[in-house]
């Protein structure tokens, strides 16, 4: 499983969806969550870069897991997701700061697959953020934590990756369209 996580970690960094260790990836495996470790470089993932924590409750292994594990766990508890990606996509972060509760994509893929992308609040690694993200993802395939980054889910990791890239694409198109209109 770490190889699959590594594959998408590399793609995310190469695509500019996050940089260095800012972001995290997880996959649900039965009653466990295999998640990237805190501080790991997502384009240099090895077997030692991931840890499997309990799905239902925190344990000592959470100490070395990503600081956003609390959000991942809440998503898995509240939804049917089998994979989660959190990335610091720049245009998604910008749009989350320019809008209040959601953004409506202008591009056709965004309109087709997302309809709207919710913006949620809550500080990094908090229960509030975990609950708000999970609640949004009960309805949507992805959301943006205000000023922070995207959370996207999938039935497989590739799907969560596609959703992440689509959110960033929609945010980028919207940003430049709005900029042109306001000239």
């Amino acid at each position, binding site marked *: 499983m770490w190889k699959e996580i590594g594959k998408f970690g590399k793609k995310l960094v190469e695509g500019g969806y996050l940089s260095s260790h800012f972001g995290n990836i997880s996959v649900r495996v*039965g009653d466990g969550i295999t998640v990237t470790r805190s501080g790991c470089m997502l384009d240099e993932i090895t077997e030692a870069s991931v840890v499997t924590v309990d799905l239902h409750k925190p344990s000592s292994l959470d100490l070395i897991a990503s600081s956003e594990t609390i959000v991942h766990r809440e998503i898995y508890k509240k939804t049917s997701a089998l994979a989660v990606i959190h990335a610091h996509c720049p245009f998604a972060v910008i749009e989350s700061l320019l809008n209040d509760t959601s953004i409506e994509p202008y591009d056709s893929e965004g309109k087709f697959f997302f309809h709207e992308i919710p913006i949620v609040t809550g500080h990094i690694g908090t229960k509030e953020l975990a609950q708000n993200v999970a609640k949004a993802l009960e309805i949507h395939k992805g959301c943006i934590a205000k000023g922070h980054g995207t959370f996207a889910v999938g039935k497989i990791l590739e799907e969560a990756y596609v959703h992440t890239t689509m959110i960033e694409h929609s945010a980028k198109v919207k940003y430049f369209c709005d900029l042109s209109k306001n000239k």
Partner: protein
Amino acid sequence: MPHIEKLLEIDLDTEKIEVKKLDKKMTSKYIGGRGIGVKLLFDRLPPNTDPLSNDNILIFATGPITGTVVPLSGRHIVVSKSPLTGTAFDSSAGGFFGRELRMAGFDVVIIKGASEKPVYIEIDDGDVNIKDASNIWGKNVKESTSILSNNGFKVSCIGKAGENLIPISSIMSEYTHACGRGGLGAVMGSKKLKAFIVRGKKEIQISDSEKMKKYISESMRLLNASPVASKGLAYYGTPSLVNLINTMRIMPTDNFRKVHFENAYKVSGEYIAENYDIKKKTCYNCFIACKREDRKRNIEIPEYETIAMFGPNSMNDDIEKIIQANYICNDYGVDTISAGNAVSCYIELEGKKDIEKPLKEIVEGGPLSQGSFRYSKGKGKEDSSMSVKGLEIPGYDPRGVLGLALSYATSNRGACHLRAYMVGPEILGKPKLIDRLSFSGKSGLIQIFQNISASVHSLIMCQFSSFALSEEEYANLLSAGVGELYTSEEFIKTGERIYNLERLFNLRESMTYSEDTLPGRFFGEDGISKEEFNSVLDEYYTYRGWNKGVPTMERLESLDLKNEGKFLCGKK
């Protein structure tokens, strides 16, 4: 009107007809169609009821969007205890019958008891009558439909197979739309109920038209953008799968002893398009129009599954023979998948490559009419039956589609490709391509797709919508239809509830997890590793919150099924 609510109960023992309302809590929890059908069956049918006795019940059900402006919403569903598998069983059909039933004034009809003489049920715009069917008993589907469809009635009926209680018999709507699987035609026959005809002018309502307009527009954008829905199926119909499945080496061939058929092209969608003058046929409000007819003879071109079973799996490359077999099955009212699979089994055991003789044996009620499992068991060769829980495997070899393999094995109604519909992601790459040759991640995926399908079958929408729509679009359509918010997650959870209730029904009938498996032929050196399969099955149970195929009380409580699962307490 919010949820479906108009319930009609007909007792054929006493000819008592009662109009009732469905409980709002129940419809909210089970949506309609398959969900409501299974709930009513679970609540009303005592354990170990003989499926062909007066005590079994037959439920015709629609869903909250059936017959509305929602595209692909023309289906209805029939639920009962199957005489083939002994499980809870739902079987659905397209066409126009479901819409007409709602226009005639009813959403769900429960038929109890059995008549002494042949009868048919007529609903004429709310007016319900039980009528004498002596003059049509003994006639096949085409003739019966022709007699009863005068004056605009939509007809669901059985042929001679159902009358003769053949456990692979179907219920045919408007002649070619089959509630095919599980032998529910025999349940109808056991009640001496030849037909059910409906006609009406009542308006079918939805709760929020404005929102519905928006959600339909969003769904249609996705459906039009899906090449499978808007192009492949729309151009060639389901036979477009023949060459594809054969190329992928998952074509059932010679009773699943091979995976590739040399002459597949001669029975393919392309061959049919080149050699026949094709007329498209459609169900209510469907732009795909996947059904096909030979314009010259007004005879139906078989669907992919029928071609796979009577063609490659029976080592037959003569498309005309398959067209004839399909015609005979539809007219007698026999499931083409089970019949074709049973013919393949016959060919293996008898060593004669002939589909006509065994098919004649099936429709005339010979030993083969009991399905491949009972037939081969009768010969001491049940290893030659390619079935799960008694239901014959359809047209995809599980060795090359491992998610589908797990789905066949864990399906509550036996081998069925529609329970998780992995044909979409594993074969066609829709909505997302996943590796068909790996078990990795499949246990989690299968249970989600099974849950989604259970809710889709309760809405009810055509399975082909899943090539483009996700739980989000389905939840939106449902919400606008009933005027109550369903999130994507609630849509999936409702499906999980339905799936667990079906499992509880089967456990109450004393079924065990030992039946969550595949025929031995698919395991071993050239097939699936038994060890790996068992490990994935255990993982699947973990995702489901089941212990050896039995739901834990904790999981049942989370699904609001505690009462239904009470009988498990104290059971070892």
